[in-house]
């Protein structure tokens, strides 16, 4: 295992570019999807079909003052967006885009991504606590309260796939699906996975920690300028990672006819992201108790039964 400094820098730059470009495209796409689902057009003014709208918004956000509330816990307040964003750079590392395009092949890549995904919640909690704002604190507390309800079904989903493949390496999991994608074996598990990652990325209908009609803006109520945009960047990057994981776990990674592997991976990732946007602009936010009972009473038994049946079938 020899890693040169140059390649590390190269990967970092590539991942940073990916994170930035992804957020720029996704924010625009989100607004377009929202518009068209509500008989509107979405952004149309900046660039053709508003494609440069996010850049204009980004410049505005960068030029804004970062206001820190008087009674806020200043170090935590400033640390929270960074804690939320930085794990993404590590979580992108084991994600394979094709047979050869992968920052670093890790034999426990799956575990790394799942573990780093939790740091997002830490960032939200820090933001909620550091802001010294009741709404922000409630948002942070909600983010922590919902972890157990979705993490366990999510982990059982992932365990089932690991059991089928016998490897924690994302690359091996993708290679194992060369002929048949896992989604054909495990359609219910795929649905459970998509629901749990919607929960994990704090997206509507499960966006409890920012619930704008209840909590103003939740954990990022007090953030302005770049603080806010870092959270935004983090949200869209986590969506990318969650969709990337779904691609590798269920949709056969880079496998597909005609097109090169990277193209297939990106098509699959953005299809899943579109699905998550579709959820957001279709379903109203559920109550937190509804979500908890959904997590414990439906997602958990469903994934457990699936796990046991899969284990049984594999043992035969």
């Amino acid at each position, binding site marked *: 295992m020899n890693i040169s400094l140059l390649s590390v820098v190269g990967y970092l730059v590539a991942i940073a570019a990916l994170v930035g470009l992804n957020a720029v495209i996704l924010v625009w796409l989100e607004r377009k*999807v929202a*518009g*068209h*689902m*509500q*008989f*509107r*057009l979405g952004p*149309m003014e900046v660039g053709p079909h508003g494609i440069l709208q996010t850049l204009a918004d980004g410049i505005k956000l960068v030029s804004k003052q970062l206001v820190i509330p008087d009674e806020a816990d200043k170090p935590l307040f400033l640390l929270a967006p960074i804690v939320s964003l930085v794990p993404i750079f590590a979580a992108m590392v084991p994600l394979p885009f094709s047979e050869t395009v992968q920052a670093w092949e890790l034999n426990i890549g799956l575990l790394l991504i799942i573990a780093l995904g939790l740091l997002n919640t830490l960032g939200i909690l820090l933001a909620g606590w550091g802001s010294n704002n009741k709404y922000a604190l409630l948002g942070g507390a909600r983010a922590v309260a919902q972890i157990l309800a979705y993490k366990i079904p999510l982990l059982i989903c992932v365990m089932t796939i690991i059991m089928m493949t016998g490897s924690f390496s994302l690359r091996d999991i993708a290679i194992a699906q060369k002929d048949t994608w896992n989604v054909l074996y495990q359609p219910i598990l795929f649905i459970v996975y998509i629901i749990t990652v919607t929960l994990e990325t704090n997206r509507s209908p499960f966006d409890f920690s920012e619930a704008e009609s209840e909590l103003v803006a939740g954990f990022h109520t007090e953030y302005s300028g770049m603080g806010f945009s870092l959270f935004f960047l983090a949200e869209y990057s986590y969506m990318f990672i969650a969709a990337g994981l779904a691609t590798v776990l269920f949709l056969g990674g880079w496998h597909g006819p005609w097109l090169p592997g990277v193209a297939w991976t990106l098509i699959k990732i953005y299809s899943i992201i579109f699905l998550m946007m*579709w*959820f957001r*602009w*279709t*379903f109203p936010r559920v109550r937190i108790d509804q979500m908890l009972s959904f997590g414990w009473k*439906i997602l958990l038994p469903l994934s457990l039964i699936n796990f046991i049946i899969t284990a049984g079938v594999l043992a035969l």
Partner: protein
Amino acid sequence: MMECCYIKEVVKGFFSLCTGMRVTMGNVFTRPATVQWPRESAPLPDRFRGHIMMLADDATGYPKCIACTSCARNCPSQCIIVTGKKPEGAKKKMADRFELDFTKCSLCGLCVEICPVGALDFSRDYALASYTRNDFTTMDLLQELGSPF
């Protein structure tokens, strides 16, 4: 029994979610309702009421108004000022001043209805904007028409 209801609920809930998603996807493929003003505008209804305007006589191009002041007298907001005189050699009076105070006008249309010669009508001009209210307190309706004076 309980288990049966539970599974039924889950399946029913799943399909109701699918229905919702079908609706929003249908919306995506429907024409958006947005009209991109000012590059395009929605069609005006036939009976649209803009501010009143003076009609011109087809033959002469002069205003049709005979300065009878029925409109000014009937206006509930008293926002019309009409004066008239006879042009040289003519038998009938014609308006030489017709001013509308659009800041007071309620677009009731009594003036349009009462006019004995049908000289008034609603315009279809709705994009009105100005930096000063004086542009609307004395709108000269004769401005764009020919004048015998």
